């Protein structure tokens, strides 16, 4: 099967600091691919490269056999959760509608067709009940379901997710990651899932790209999430513990900032 995402000799640097160098990677259709790593390791930049918003320092990045380009129809994108202001003049269905035809010029000339598609997507992500509620009045989990629906509007070949579970409660974490997994399995979309926490998606992940300290490791979770590999990446002793199908990493150099959404966002800017 031909890879849908392909990086060859890819390097990304900011000034003198290399985020990652000489990365060769193929992601196949239907693969659930997680990108892990500490803050500022270049996870978000990795997505930006695929979105065509960030140029590589060296090497090539291709999507569906062609060089990446901004606005590719092959891509569905779920941005980092950022709540809408209470009085944002947009209803849930309008947010999904932006994904359907928001990029086109002019007015929506055939509303019936667009509305049918929007209804389908709302149904798909279980958001029909609040279709007409202004987005600013929805919970973070509800907004994130809509983001999934919005990203699936074009039935994308590649679904790029930037920390889609951040600041969601456990119930919504499960619901949102199950929705993403369904697109992966049923529609054979490749999923690139950037996260700092692998456990909510551990059952779905096929392969992992772990970025740390300017280096990386690609492989199955069993291969990558080990004491040896992570200690090597971080350059200090890190203990990986497997318990009840969950993975706990102890002794991370920046463990204190790991669960803070705010500090993450700051580091994300730098990355």
């Amino acid at each position, binding site marked *: 099967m031909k890879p849908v995402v392909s990086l060859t000799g890819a390097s990304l640097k900011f000034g003198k600091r290399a985020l990652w160098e000489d990365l060769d990677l193929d992601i196949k259709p239907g693969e659930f691919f997680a990108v892990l790593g500490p803050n500022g390791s270049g996870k978000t930049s990795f997505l930006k490269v695929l979105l065509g918003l960030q140029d590589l320092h060296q090497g090539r990045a291709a999507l569906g056999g062609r060089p990446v380009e901004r*606005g590719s129809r092959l891509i569905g994108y779920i941005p980092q959760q950022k709540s809408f202001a209470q009085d944002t003049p947009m209803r849930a269905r*309008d947010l999904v509608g932006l994904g359907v035809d928001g990029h086109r010029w002019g007015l929506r000339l055939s509303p019936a067709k667009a509305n049918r598609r929007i209804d389908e997507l709302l149904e798909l992500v279980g958001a029909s*009940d609040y279709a007409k509620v202004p987005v600013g009045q929805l919970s973070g989990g509800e907004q994130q379901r809509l983001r999934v629906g919005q990203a699936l509007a074009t039935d994308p070949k590649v679904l790029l997710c930037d920390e889609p579970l951040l600041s969601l409660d456990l119930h919504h974490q499960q619901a949102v990651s199950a929705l993403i997994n369904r697109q992966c399995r049923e529609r054979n979309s490749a999923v690139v899932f950037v996260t700092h926490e692998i456990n909510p998606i551990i059952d779905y992940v096929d392969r992992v790209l772990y970025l740390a300290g300017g280096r990386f490791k690609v492989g199955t979770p069993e291969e990558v999430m080990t004491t040896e590999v992570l200690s090597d990446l971080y350059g200090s002793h890190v203990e990986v513990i497997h318990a009840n199908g969950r993975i706990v990493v102890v002794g991370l150099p920046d463990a204190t900032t790991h669960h803070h959404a705010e500090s993450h966002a700051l580091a994300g800017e730098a990355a």
Partner: protein
Amino acid sequence: MDADSILAAIFNFENYGELLVLVQNSIWAGAVLGLLGGLVGTFVMKRDLAFAVHGISELSFAGAAFALLVGADIVFGSLVGSVAAALLLGLMGVKARDKNSTIGVIMPFGLGLGILFLSLYEGRAANKFGLLTGQIVSVDTVQLTALAGTALAVIVALVAVWRPLNFASLDPELAEARGVPVRRLGIVFMVLLGISVALSIQVVGALLVLALLITPAAAALRVTSSPVAVVVLSVVFAVTATVGGILLALGGRIPISPYVTTLSFIIYVVCRAIGSVRAGKGINGRVLQAQ
């Protein structure tokens, strides 16, 4: 002045039928500007540009005052002033949210320049006053044609960029990722806004442009979040305010702007009250499952 004579100055419907014929052009001009203001206003609200509109109008006033001083066309002068201000703000960033201090700096400067030019001007005092408070009673057919033509051009341009502009205004990060030219659309909109401000100044004056470009859309957003309904209501409110204001102002000897702003304000207050009652009852469109 006693209460009766004040009232007579504000409302006077003698010879109303004859007056109506004389000001036909003005009423049409009011309707056109209402339509334009209602449409542009919805994007002003979506992009959080209310304060920018005020800043643009002050520079537009300076431009008009300068034109008055040197004997040039006033409408042209205000167009140059407002488009320059709008472009400046547009080039500084996509959103005006972080630019409020800059607008706050530009605004008094523009107003100061305008007052300087007006002080140097030695013509009729009514011309000076009109720039600040509006004058629409004497629109001739040529002016109306130019106004309607310009407004139509702005509306056509706005319709052409409607969906991507909407995307870029409400969800800029995703719009960027989907290939929407977010920054360029922002600049295009600022130019359209600049032109709309310059046109509106002719009716309501530089000080009261917000009543035409903000209040109707803000009122509409209080009662609905549906994108189509917001646009329709915003236009209806704006046209009601301008045309209604002109009709009420006919007989009195007061500029029309107080009528327009008051109508606009009343509409807003009513919409706000309706919105609060709904919010109080928890009505927001959610379908509640039977328990």
